[in-house]
């Protein structure tokens, strides 16, 4: 049993590329190499909760601390990260990489008015995230992993499309954002469950599980298959793999931010959500903190300023810095700024 276990773990490694495109195709990512950048996907299911606002401000604050940061707008079809960065009409970005005009992803990154902070736009992409081909997605993910910088923030779109989930799962500690409202929390839970299920499927499809379990995962048409069913299937047909499955899913961590916090909000909400999720999911959850709602945010965006730099003393900016303390890569880069075209 131990031998089988070790063998399965070994099989998780390496890069798998599959030809066809479809929901059942997964992207395998090589284990993080020493000089690979830290990837922080920002997701969360619901639109308007502040994913882009948070990506932009986190990126700026990290760059200010000396990290070479690249922000990537992955909300294809809903791109607006440029607006939050005060860039009125960004030049081509992801589109130029995807249509092969440029070979290297770093060539489509543009500098921002903040040093150390570069940006890749998706404004000119003609497709929505759902229409991204599997091969394009794989190519993009591998290019992201090889970007020459310290930290990459991925601003994800709303929804739980499997392409969005795959970008979220490029990190084993993605961040999701929600606000203290029922609809935002509902969508956040849906997003977590979808990411969790996708990860479970990845683990099963890449390892030596029983054929019945594997077939259940391969069956892309079976939308009703939920993660509880998967665990049940493993228990029933593959009890020897149960511990392996649990150990693997435990390596996927979820971190979250509660945005647009108001005075009336229960100040213990974040900790409570964390505790409940840790109790009911096999994956660990971490609460990064809450960010105050500030009425001046809209004006700040209109005047093309980054809020946390314009109002560094505001509660909102203080909240942001506390989150950066936890998220920023531990080593500070001594190299020069990232090469842009």
């Amino acid at each position, binding site marked *: 049993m131990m031998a089988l276990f070790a063998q399965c773990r070994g099989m998780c490694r390496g890069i798998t590329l599959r030809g066809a495109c479809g929901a059942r195709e997964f992207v395998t990512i090589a284990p993080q190499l020493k000089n690979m950048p830290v990837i922080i996907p920002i997701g969360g299911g619901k639109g308007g909760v502040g994913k882009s606002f948070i990506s932009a401000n986190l990126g700026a604050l990290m760059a200010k601390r000396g990290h070479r940061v690249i922000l990537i707008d992955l909300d294809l079809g809903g791109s607006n990260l440029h607006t939050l960065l005060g860039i009125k009409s960004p030049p081509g970005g992801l589109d130029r990489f995807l249509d092969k005009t440029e070979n290297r992803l770093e060539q489509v990154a543009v500098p921002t008015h903040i040093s150390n902070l570069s940006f890749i736009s998706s404004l000119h992409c003609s497709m929505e995230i759902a229409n991204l081909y599997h091969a394009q997605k794989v190519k993009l993910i591998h290019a992201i992993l090889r970007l020459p910088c310290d930290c990459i923030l991925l601003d994800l779109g709303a929804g739980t499309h499997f392409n969005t989930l795959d970008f979220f799962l490029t990190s084993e500690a993605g961040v999701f954002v929600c606000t*203290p409202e*029922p609809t935002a*929390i*509902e969508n956040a*839970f*849906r997003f977590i469950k979808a990411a969790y299920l996708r990860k479970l499927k990845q683990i099963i499809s890449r390892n030596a599980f029983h054929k019945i379990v594997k077939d259940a995962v391969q069956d892309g048409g079976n939308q009703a298959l939920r*993660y*509880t069913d998967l665990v049940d299937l493993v228990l029933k047909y593959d009890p020897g793999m149960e511990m392996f499955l649990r150990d693997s899913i435990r390596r996927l961590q979820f971190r979250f931010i509660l945005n647009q916090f108001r005075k009336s909000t*229960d100040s213990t*909400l974040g900790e*409570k*959500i964390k*505790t*409940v999720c840790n*109790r*009911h*999911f*096999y994956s660990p959850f971490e609460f990064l903190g809450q960010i105050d709602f500030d009425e001046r945010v809209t004006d700040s965006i209109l005047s093309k300023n980054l809020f946390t730099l314009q109002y560094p003393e505001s509660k909102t900016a203080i909240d942001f810095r506390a989150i950066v303390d936890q998220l920023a890569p531990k080593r500070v880069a001594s190299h020069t700024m990232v090469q842009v075209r």
Partner: protein
Amino acid sequence: MKTFENQNYYEILKLPFDADAVAVQRAYREALEIYGENSLVTYELFSDEQRGDLLQAIDEAYHTLMDEDKRATYNQMLIHSGLADPSLFARKTEKPAAAPARPAPVKHRDLQAWVKQKSKEEPIKQLISETMGKDLVAGDDLKRLREALGIEISEIYEVTRISASTLRNIEANQVNNLPAEVFLKSFLKSLAQILQVDPQRTVDGYLKYIALARRPPRK
């Protein structure tokens, strides 16, 4: 998704074993705030069925831990099943056992030999095959068998450490005061071993019987 399935009542309410009534009340209120239908914390996290199960477990935990007698029985069960160390319960968990009917209860080995011997007697042999031949095994059947074999409840307690009140509840079909099913099964097995009857038949028959007894009476 993990549920409360393998958690004991203390774990469900996140309480230490020696928590007092005030702490139990507080923990219950907090659990309802989190798992209640209108809670923002778990909004749409669970299906209706899952939430119903969680709330039911919380309720059972609360009612058991608030009731001195039920709690003592429950604690005894945790100790018996090896799920908790007796030293963790600062409170007294077991009321003094009823004075044994015989001054010196026979030891386990003696009991085993005794039952073996007794079972050879024709009327008892008949009673055993009659009881085990039935689809349903009621608490009364177990009691009748025990008495026919001449064994006291206190003797069973000596061997199994199943509290006397639990044993009495089992024999009296006290459906509302029975331990959780996992424990009940293990107790029934121990009991069957002492009575030297088929443990599986005993467990199945008894569970079937109480399932029927639990149904609301028909007119």
